[in-house]
């Protein structure tokens, strides 16, 4: 198939953009969760 590299690159680009973005959101969520847990810990102990 002529120009297959462009077609494949476009399909991969869509996957890559959403995958990278999703990973970034998930990382930020888990970092926030850790921080919230750390802040709640002293309250639980008291």
């Amino acid at each position, binding site marked *: 198939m002529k120009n297959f590299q462009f077609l494949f690159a476009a399909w991969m680009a869509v996957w890559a953009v959403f995958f990278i973005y999703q990973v970034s959101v998930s990382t930020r969520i888990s970092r*926030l969760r850790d921080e919230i847990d750390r802040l709640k810990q002293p309250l639980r102990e008291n």
Partner: protein
Amino acid sequence: MKARIPLTVLAAGLMSVAGYAALFIAPDERTMHEIQRIFYFHLGCWSAMFTALTITFVANIGWLLTRRPQWDWLSVSGAEVGVASCTAGLITGVLWGKPAWGIWWTWDARLTTCFVLWLLYVSYLILRGLIEDPGRRATLSAVFGIFAFLDAPLVYVSNRLWRTQHPAPVLLGGANSGLDPTMGRVLMISVSAMLTMMLIVLADRYRLERLRHELDELRVAGETRPGELVSALAKAPRN
């Protein structure tokens, strides 16, 4: 949250089917031949972007009318997902432009208004990062968001109003527009796949904003109640 796994599986399945259908099932277009198949991913990205930015627009108005923080969380989530979809749309456009036109980019009305839209929403996100006070941040960004959204309909009508390098609209474009039925079905699958994926990411991004709000409230509580919470806060990294 319970719907998360089935939705993710559905989105991944739809994306795979959409990729297969676009590459191997959709018929060749007469003038551009096989490279026209990028259209299915390209239009999917724009559908996701317009949906996300419309959500942001509605949420901006919602915040200005009610001052409920949920509207602000939704607006920033929609804007970020919209920027991601717009980025994917611009990349697929560039990858389509080179083999179809012989150039990666041209400053015609459609491409320029798209690029301006991307810049406006990137600015919206930068603006939010610059304002510390949550209420002021939400109000200023809502006003800016409503202004930024004015470009979205302009993007849509740009290749109807002006002669552009970008192809004329194939959907709702008048007498000479329209799609082959198989192409139409493949396009439906691609758009559904992108919208499902966009909604999953949007839900996660909204959750992130809710957690950020929870953390801010804990920080405020720590400041008003000195003790263990404050010492824990001092050790915690700031986002």
